[in-house]
């Protein structure tokens, strides 16, 4: 089978497991929702909330990313499936792309829900002109986050204490996504009078990040899981 076919097989397997176990629906979305509500309580002033809404959306996304990545690799390590994939000689690049795609789909669903929550809870407006920028931000940031998450999820999969190690490794690395995506969404929403045109340079940063980690992660994933498991 070709690399693409294997990647598709791995992605559909992961999404089928998610559909059946409903971790995103029953655990991650409620967690993200509670996080948004707690922010609303902590910053109880509508003008402040509206101002910081883009950052809160991406912070909640990053926290939820950690849960999704740990779940994505728990299903591989619980019964030795990652070892079995290695023994079966399954192309690690295909495993990486497949798992990253499945993670990206789940992240995209999460981000849309969080944006809707931001509109409802924080009173954020979505002007018509900002929709293209908003959608582009979601796509590029999601690709970057899924690439990094899959890479570090594979790296920590075989370690004891991976639950604490993963946030320590991932959060500093995804800081550029947090900054870039927040600024781009601020522009898309016109938060604090930021112009729409100011958002597009941040898309460049997010795109470079996604491509760098997508390609670099695919190359590094095989050797990393060899060493880590």
């Amino acid at each position, binding site marked *: 089978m070709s690399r693409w076919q294997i990647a598709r097989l791995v992605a559909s397997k992961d999404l089928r497991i998610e559909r059946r176990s409903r971790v995103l629906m029953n655990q991650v979305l409620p967690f993200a929702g509670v996080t948004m509500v707690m922010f609303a309580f902590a910053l109880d002033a509508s003008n402040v909330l509206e101002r910081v809404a883009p950052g809160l959306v991406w912070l909640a996304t990053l926290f939820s990313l950690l849960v999704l990545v740990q779940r994505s690799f728990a299903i591989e390590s619980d019964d*030795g*499936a990652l070892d*079995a994939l290695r023994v*079966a*000689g399954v192309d690690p690049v295909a495993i990486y792309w497949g798992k990253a795609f499945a993670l990206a789909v789940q992240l995209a669903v999460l981000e849309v829900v969080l944006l809707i929550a931001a509109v409802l809870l924080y009173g954020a407006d979505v002007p018509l002109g900002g929709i293209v920028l908003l959608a582009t931000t979601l796509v590029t940031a999601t690709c970057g986050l899924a690439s990094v998450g899959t890479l570090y999820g594979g790296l920590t999969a075989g370690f004891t204490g991976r639950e604490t190690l993963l946030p320590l490794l991932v959060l500093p690395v995804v800081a550029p996504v947090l900054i870039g995506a927040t600024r781009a969404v601020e522009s898309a929403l016109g938060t604090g009078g930021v112009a729409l045109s100011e958002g597009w340079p941040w898309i460049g940063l997010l795109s470079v990040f996604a491509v760098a980690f997508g390609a670099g992660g695919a190359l590094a994933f095989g050797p990393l899981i060899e060493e880590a498991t």
Partner: protein
Amino acid sequence: MDVDPEVPSAPSAASDHVVALDQAVAVIGGFPVLAGATLAVSSGEIVLLSGPNGAGKTSILRLCAGLLPIARGSGSIFGFDLATQRDSIRPRVGLLGHRNGLYGDLTVAENVAFWGSTVGATPDEIGAASARLGVDGRLNDVVVSKLSAGQKRRTSLACLVARRAELWLLDEPHAGLDAAGRDELDTVLRQAVSSGATVLVASHELERAGSLADRVVDVIGGQVHDSGASS
């Protein structure tokens, strides 16, 4: 590759021995789990590795599967060097270790289909593999997390058959199986061997596995003591 859907295909004649270890040393965390193991297994043989806990039986299986790097000495599987050609070895090897390598949230059919699909097995081959291990029918649509230990073991073996492994590396394969399951496993292994596969079994159940094996070798202190005698 044209293969019988019910049994693994025969290994190629890339070398005289399917497994050839010569003074192989493997180290985990600074501890030598194999201390100069020498072993030769010919095509179509069933070889039983016996020995006490911690003797190195599992390490030999993991070394042969390409999961454990060889630190010193030499070794080859199907003629491919264990130090430099592990990627060529792995697709031809199936390892059933202490864990089953299954996805608990997928059904039996989905698990067998997934592992079969990684080597391009057809739906017929996948169905035949499930039938061979008796996990078709009513078990097909049961999620693996709801199965008994024995049923999980059978499902894992069905995945091995669907993957068309040529060298079967089995670690305590009878564990968790009931009497019928053990008989079925023995039958499957004999059929696999009759079609050209080679089997390396690590087991404490000498009476059961010994009757199945062509040869028994002792593993003690990370070394192999092969008397060459038939079981």
